[in-house]
C-alpha cells in the first residue's frame, strides 16, 4: 500500500527520538570506566532493571511480529507469546542468580569462571556475536517496516536511520543510557498497549463488507456457471465485463479473471472461485499485485493513491444476525468472536508464461471458532496432520522458545547491571510481570487488528500500528514512535552485547591484548560502530523476511549453543573446559547448519517454491531445537568424560 506521512506522526516521532538521544547524551558523561560502560557500574535499581528487561525483550518481533501473526491467522501467534514468556521461568529459576554470582561483564565470564580458559572465551564470544547478529537482523527489518508508512520513506532509509541513532546512543553512553531508554520504552509500550486494548474492547465488533477506505468487497453468486457472466455484468460499472478463459498457469487455479471496461480504460481483475455443494459458483473479489517493466500494478491498474490495495480485516457476521456487538468485556471479547465469522486473506503467487509474477490475495471467510484455536497458520498446521514429523517440528519450536530466552546474550548481560543476586532475582520478577501482562494484551491487539478493517494485506508486520491508526492519528503516531524506540532499544542492547564480546572476551582474554580501562571502552565503541554498520547492511538485505521467522532462528541458535554449558556448569561438577568448548561449538554449528539446510530456508532464503524446497531440504523438519539442544548436552557430557582429569579412584 502507498502511505503518506502525517505531520502529527512525524512530530511525535521526532520528539521521541530527540528525548531518547537527550537521555543518552545526558547520561553519557556518567560512564567513563569499562565497568560503567558495560555494566552501568552495577548500580541500576532492580525495579528499573526489571522494566528494562521488558524493554529489551519486547522487541520488534514481539510487538510487530506476534500482533501481525495473530491478526492474519488467529490464535497461533499467541503460541509465540506463551513460549517467549515461559523462557523467563528458565531464566529466573535456573540461570539468574548463578549468572550474577559468577560473571562480571559478559556471558563468557560466567562460563569461564572456574576454568580461565582462552578457548571458552573464544567459543562463547563467537557464539555471542552469532546470536546477536541473527537477532539484530529482524530488529533492523522491523525498523524499515515501521518507517515506511509513518514517514513515507523507503525501507532502507528506516534501516539506516535506526542504525545511525543506535550507534550514537551506544557510543555516547553504553549500558547506563541503554538501560534508561529501555526502561522508558518498556513502560510506554505496556501502558499504551493497555490503552489500545481498552479501546478495542470498547469498540467491540462491527459487521462490514470492506475496510476503512469505504470499499466494499463484492461477492457474486451462488450462480450456475452458465449465468456467471450475466451475473457479473449486473454489477455497477461491469456492463461489458467478460470472463477471461483460463490459460497457461491460471489453468486449474481457484481464480477467475474478469476483463472490465475496454480499450485504454480496460483492466483485468481477479476473483476467487468456490463451488457450493450443488455445483453452483460463488465468486469473491480478490486483490492482485504485480510489477510490469518496473511499474507496480494493483488490481489490474497502475498503482496510484486512487487505485491502491484496499485495507482488509472485517467481521462478516455476528451471532444472531446482529450488525454490532457494542462494547465487550475481556472474556466476552472471545466468546463473541468465537460465534462470529471473519474474513481472513490468503495469498498465492501465479507465475505467468511471460515470467510475470502476479500475487493474488483472496478472501477466506473463516468461522470464529477456527480463529481461536491452534493450527491455522501454515507453520503450525502440522499439529492437525497425522505426520509425526510435523508435530515434532512444532514441539521443536516450542522447546527452542522455552530454552532460548535464558541463553540470549543481551538478556544475560542485564544481570550485571544490578547490585547482587537478590536484585537480579527481583528484577527478573518485575520483568516477568510486565512481559506477561504485555503478552496477554497481544491476543487482544492481534484479534482487534484482525477485525479493524485497516490491515495491509501485503504486510502482517504492520498490523499493530495500523490498528492504532484506525483508532486515531495521534495514537498511531505514539504507537509507531514507541515501536521505533523499541527497535532502537533492543538494537542498542544487542550491539552492546556484541561489543562486550569483542572487547572483553576476544581482545582482552583471547588475544591477550593489554588494554587500559579507557582503551577497553574505546575499542568497545569502535566495535559497536562496526557491528552497527553490519546490522544496517543485513537489515537492508533481508527486507522481505518475516520478522518472527528470523527471531525463531536466533532463539534456536542461542539455546543450542549456550544453554547446555550454562546449565551443566551449575549442576554437574564433572564439566571440563574441553566439554564446554565442544558443546558451544557443536550446538552453534549444528543448529545453524540445520536451519540453513531446512525446507524453510530453501523456500525463503534461496527462493525455491514450496514443493521444490520440501524436496531439496536435507533435514526432515525446519526447527532444529529438539535435536540440537540435546546434542549440545550430549557433546558436553561425552567430551567432559573423555577429558576428565584423573580422579583418585
Amino acid at each position, binding site marked *: 500500500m502507498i502511505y503518506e506521512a502525517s505531520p502529527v506522526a512525524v512530530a511525535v516521532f521526532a520528539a521521541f527520538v530527540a528525548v531518547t538521544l537527550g537521555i543518552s547524551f545526558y547520561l553519557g558523561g556518567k560512564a567513563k570506566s569499562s565497568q560503567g560502560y558495560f555494566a552501568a557500574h552495577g548500580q541500576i535499581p532492580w525495579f528499573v532493571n526489571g522494566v528494562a528487561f521488558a524493554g529489551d525483550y519486547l522487541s520488534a518481533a514481539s510487538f510487530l511480529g506476534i500482533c501481525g501473526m495473530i491478526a492474519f491467522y488467529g*490464535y497461533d501467534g*499467541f*503460541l509465540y*507469546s*506463551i513460549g517467549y*514468556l*515461559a523462557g*523467563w*521461568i*528458565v531464566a*529466573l*529459576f*535456573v540461570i539468574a*542468580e*548463578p549468572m550474577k*554470582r*559468577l560473571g562480571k561483564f559478559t556471558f563468557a565470564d560466567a562460563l569461564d569462571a*572456574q*576454568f580461565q580458559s582462552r578457548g571458552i572465551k573464544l567459543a562463547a564470544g563467537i557464539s555471542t556475536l552469532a546470536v546477536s547478529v541473527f537477532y539484530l537482523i529482524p530488529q533492523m527489518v522491523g525498523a524499515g517496516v515501521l518507517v515506511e508508512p509513518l514517514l513515507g520513506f523507503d525501507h532502507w532509509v528506516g534501516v539506516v536511520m535506526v542504525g545511525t541513532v543506535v550507534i550514537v546512543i551506544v557510543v555516547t553512553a553504553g549500558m547506563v543510557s541503554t538501560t534508561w531508554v529501555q526502561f522508558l520504552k518498556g513502560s510506554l509500550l505496556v501502558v499504551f498497549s493497555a490503552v489500545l486494548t481498552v479501546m478495542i474492547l470498547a469498540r467491540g465488533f462491527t459487521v462490514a463488507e470492506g475496510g476503512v477506505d469505504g470499499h466494499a468487497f463484492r461477492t457474486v453468486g451462488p450462480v450456475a456457471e452458465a449465468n456467471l457472466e450475466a451475473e457479473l455484468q449486473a454489477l455497477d460499472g461491469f456492463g461489458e465485463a467478460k470472463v477471461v478463459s483460463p490459460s497457461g498457469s491460471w489453468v486449474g487455479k481457484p481464480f477467475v479473471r474478469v476483463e472490465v471496461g475496454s480499450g485504454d480504460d480496460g483492466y483485468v481483475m481477479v476473483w476467487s472461485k468456490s463451488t457450493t455443494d450443488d455445483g453452483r459458483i460463488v465468486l469473491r473479489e480478490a486483490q492482485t499485485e504485480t510489477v510490469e517493466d518496473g511499474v507496480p500494478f494493483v488490481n489490474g491498474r497502475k498503482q496510484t493513491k486512487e487505485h491502491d490495495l484496499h485495507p482488509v480485516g472485517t467481521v462478516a457476521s455476528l451471532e444472531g444476525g446482529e450488525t454490532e456487538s457494542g462494547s465487550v468485556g475481556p*472474556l*466476552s471479547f*472471545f*466468546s463473541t468472536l*468465537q460465534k462470529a465469522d471473519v474474513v481472513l486473506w490468503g495469498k498465492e503467487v501465479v507465475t505467468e508464461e511471460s515470467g510475470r509474477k502476479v500475487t493474488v490475495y483472496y478472501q477466506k471467510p473463516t468461522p470464529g*471458532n477456527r480463529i*481461536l*484455536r*491452534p*493450527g491455522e497458520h501454515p507453520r503450525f498446521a502440522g*499439529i*492437525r496432520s497425522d505426520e509425526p514429523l510435523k*508435530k515434532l517440528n*512444532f*514441539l521443536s519450536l*516450542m522447546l527452542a522458545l*522455552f530454552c532460548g530466552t535464558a541463553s540470549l546474550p543481551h538478556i544475560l548481560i542485564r544481570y550485571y547491571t544490578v547490585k*547482587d*543476586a*537478590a536484585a537480579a*532475582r*527481583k528484577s*527478573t*520478577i518485575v520483568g*516477568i*510481570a510486565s512481559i*506477561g501482562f504485555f*503478552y*496477554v494484551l497481544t*491476543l487482544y491487539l492481534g484479534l482487534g487488528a484482525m477485525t479493524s478493517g485497516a490491515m495491509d494485506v501485503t504486510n502482517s508486520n504492520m498490523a499493530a500500528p495500523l490498528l492504532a491508526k484506525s483508532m486515531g492519528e495521534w495514537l498511531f503516531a505514539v504507537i509507531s514512535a514507541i515501536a521505533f524506540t523499541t527497535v532502537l532499544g533492543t538494537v542498542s542492547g544487542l550491539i552492546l552485547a556484541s561489543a562486550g564480546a569483542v572487547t572483553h572476551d576476544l581482545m582482552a582474554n583471547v588475544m591477550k591484548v593489554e588494554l587500559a580501562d579507557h582503551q577497553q571502552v574505546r575499542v568497545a565503541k569502535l566495535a559497536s560502530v562496526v557491528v552497527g554498520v553490519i546490522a544496517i547492511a543485513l537489515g537492508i538485505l533481508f527486507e522481505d523476511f518475516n520478522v518472527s521467522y528470523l527471531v525463531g532462528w536466533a532463539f534456536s541458535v542461542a539455546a543450542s549453543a549456550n544453554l547446555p554449558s550454562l546449565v551443566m556448569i*551449575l549442576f554437574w*561438577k564433572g564439566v571440563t573446559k574441553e566439554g564446554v568448548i565442544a558443546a558451544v561449538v557443536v550446538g552453534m554449528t549444528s543448529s545453524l547448519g540445520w536451519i540453513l539446510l531446512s525446507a524453510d530456508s530453501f523456500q525463503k532464503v534461496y527462493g525455491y517454491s514450496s514443493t521444490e524446497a520440501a524436496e531439496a531440504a536435507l533435514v526432515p523438519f525446519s526447527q532444529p531445537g529438539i535435536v540440537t539442544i540435546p546434542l549440545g548436552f550430549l557433546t558436553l557430557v561425552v567430551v567432559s568424560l573423555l577429558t576428565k*582429569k*584423573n*580422579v*583418585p579412584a
Partner: protein
Amino acid sequence: MLATGDEAVTRNARIGLVLFTVYLLLYGGFVLLNAFSPETMERPVLAGVNLAIVYGFGLIVAALALALLYGWMCGPDELPASTPNATESTEPSQSEGDA
C-alpha cells in the same frame, strides 16, 4: 558467615528447581495437548472461551504467580550487604588430584 551465604544459595537453587519443575509440567502439558489433541483445545471451558485461550492465559498467570512465590520464599537472604566482599565467599573450583 560464609556457611549461611552458601546455605541460602543452595536453598534458593532447590526452591528454584522445584518451581521450575512445576512450570515445566504445566508448559509441557500445554504443548503436548496442542500437538497431539488440538481438538481438546477448541472446547469452550469458561464463559464460552475455549481451552486454548484459558490455558494460555493460565500459563502466563502461573508464571507470574510462581515468580512471586519464589521471590517470597527466597526472602531477604542476601541481607548481609555490610560485608561488601561477599562475592569472595564463592569457593574456588576444587582441582582434583591433578599433578
